[in-house]
């Protein structure tokens, strides 16, 4: 494995995880653009990305389903690292320090910080709601089987879950671009020792023990 070769780097994401993540990104862009196009008239131009309004309607559900499959493939492996712990509460309370780059005032962070964990479960919840409500409002194949009241509720829930999802992804992207070295973790698979030490110290300690101890 190439990732562990340099003594100053720690492996964070395996090739399969990186491929799945970026596949997820592409699918999210297409599903998100076509969905937003139908959500607000001011964004209808985004339907052009998938080849116009009718093509957006045809493709959006398939792209969305593929996105969910990719997400849950990725999420299955990350689930165990995202379990919330008592120290996460203190991290969330110190959110101002996070935004002010005062990480020294925050409790030690494991593989993921509390913000990332909350984001993870928001994504899980949103995608579950999106799949369920999306099937109900999938007009060509499924809507005929459901009562109109459920279709109306699903349309509203679908829009709400999608809004939360896009909001979560905006936070995710902003954080990834802000914390230098994060994008490299998802493109090269590795982070520097200092990055892990600064942002995820508990994980850093775990890693140096497990890579050097045996």
């Amino acid at each position, binding site marked *: 494995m190439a990732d562990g070769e340099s003594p100053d780097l720690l492996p964070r994401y395996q090739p399969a995880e990186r491929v799945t993540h970026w596949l997820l990104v592409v699918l999210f862009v297409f599903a998100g653009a076509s969905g937003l196009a139908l959500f607000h008239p001011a964004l209808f131009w985004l339907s052009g990305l998938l080849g116009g309004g009718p093509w957006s309607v045809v493709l959006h559900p398939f792209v969305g389903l593929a996105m969910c499959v990719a997400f849950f493939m990725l999420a299955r492996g990350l689930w165990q690292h995202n379990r919330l712990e008592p120290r996460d509460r203190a991290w969330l309370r110190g959110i101002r320090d996070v935004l002010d780059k005062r990480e020294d005032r925050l409790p030690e962070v494991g593989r993921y910080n509390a913000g990332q964990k909350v984001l993870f479960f928001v994504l899980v919840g949103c995608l579950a709601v999106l799949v369920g409500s999306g099937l109900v409002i999938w007009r060509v194949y499924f809507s005929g089987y459901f009562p109109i009241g459920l279709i109306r509720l699903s349309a509203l829930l679908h829009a709400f879950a999608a809004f939360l999802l896009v909001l979560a992804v905006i936070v995710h992207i902003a954080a990834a671009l802000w914390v230098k070295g994060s994008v490299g973790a998802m493109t090269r698979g590795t982070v520097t020792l200092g990055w892990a030490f600064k942002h995820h110290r508990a994980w850093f*300690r775990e890693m140096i023990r497990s890579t*050097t101890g045996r």
Partner: protein
Amino acid sequence: MALQSLDIRRRSATTMPAPAVRAAATTEVAKLIDTSKCIGCKACQTACMEWNDLRDDIGTTSGIYDNPRDLTDRSWTVMRFSEYENPKGDLEWLIRKDGCMHCADPGCLKACPAPGAIVQYANGIVDFHEENCIGCGYCVTGCPFDVPRISKRDHKAYKCNLCSDRVAVGLEPACVKACPTGSITFGTKEQMQRDAADRVVDLKSRGFENAGLYDPPGVGGTHVMYVLHHADQPALYSGLPARPVVSPLVRLWKGATKPLALGVLAFAALAGLLNYVRVGPNETDADDESAARREKERTNG
């Protein structure tokens, strides 16, 4: 914009106001269907087929008079027959010509995400422009009367357009033209309301004390109205809703939610950018690297 009767008052998925200068002077039209005069001959269905060049699939008999059984993409109006045993023990045959009601506050138009796929003319007619339709079915979700149908062939939405092409050149809708009993009439909305009021007085004098006009205010009134002998129980007429409204779920989905959600998303993106430039990028410096290396060596050693 050549024809005044084609002036557009509202257009789906359009946030700017429609051209309004000529709208005020335009008379609103309405079709009045007097259920008490209807004999169920289906001339209106045939006329609709002929004028609009629609040929639905041949169905199968289901033991009742309704034929076809329901509205479809190619049957824009159907007569619905119901047998009602009144409290006196007499049988009443209540026949209602079903189809688009042309709501003043149309749920289909509110729900539609495709710019210009649904328009409401200044005369009140709600028309689908199938060339702009994207086939999402949101109009079905928005309609309180279960009228729009998505075609299985081209995945576009279809419904009665009140013969907007005929009305535009001063003709009445095809179903009105064909009706042999004068059950269906067409004119200005005020005139139809006046005619209905006269007919209601007449019906009351003949023993139908609950006769009345069906012009439901929940959807702002409609441009297709019924005279009902039992206006207190519209549901008798094959489930005509008593108090139709655009569902609150649809109002929320296509109302306040839209600008609010978009605003929050824009704010989140902007806040991310501004915090980035406020505190600068969150970088790992040489101190972090050397501290990390020292700790790693300590653990190793």
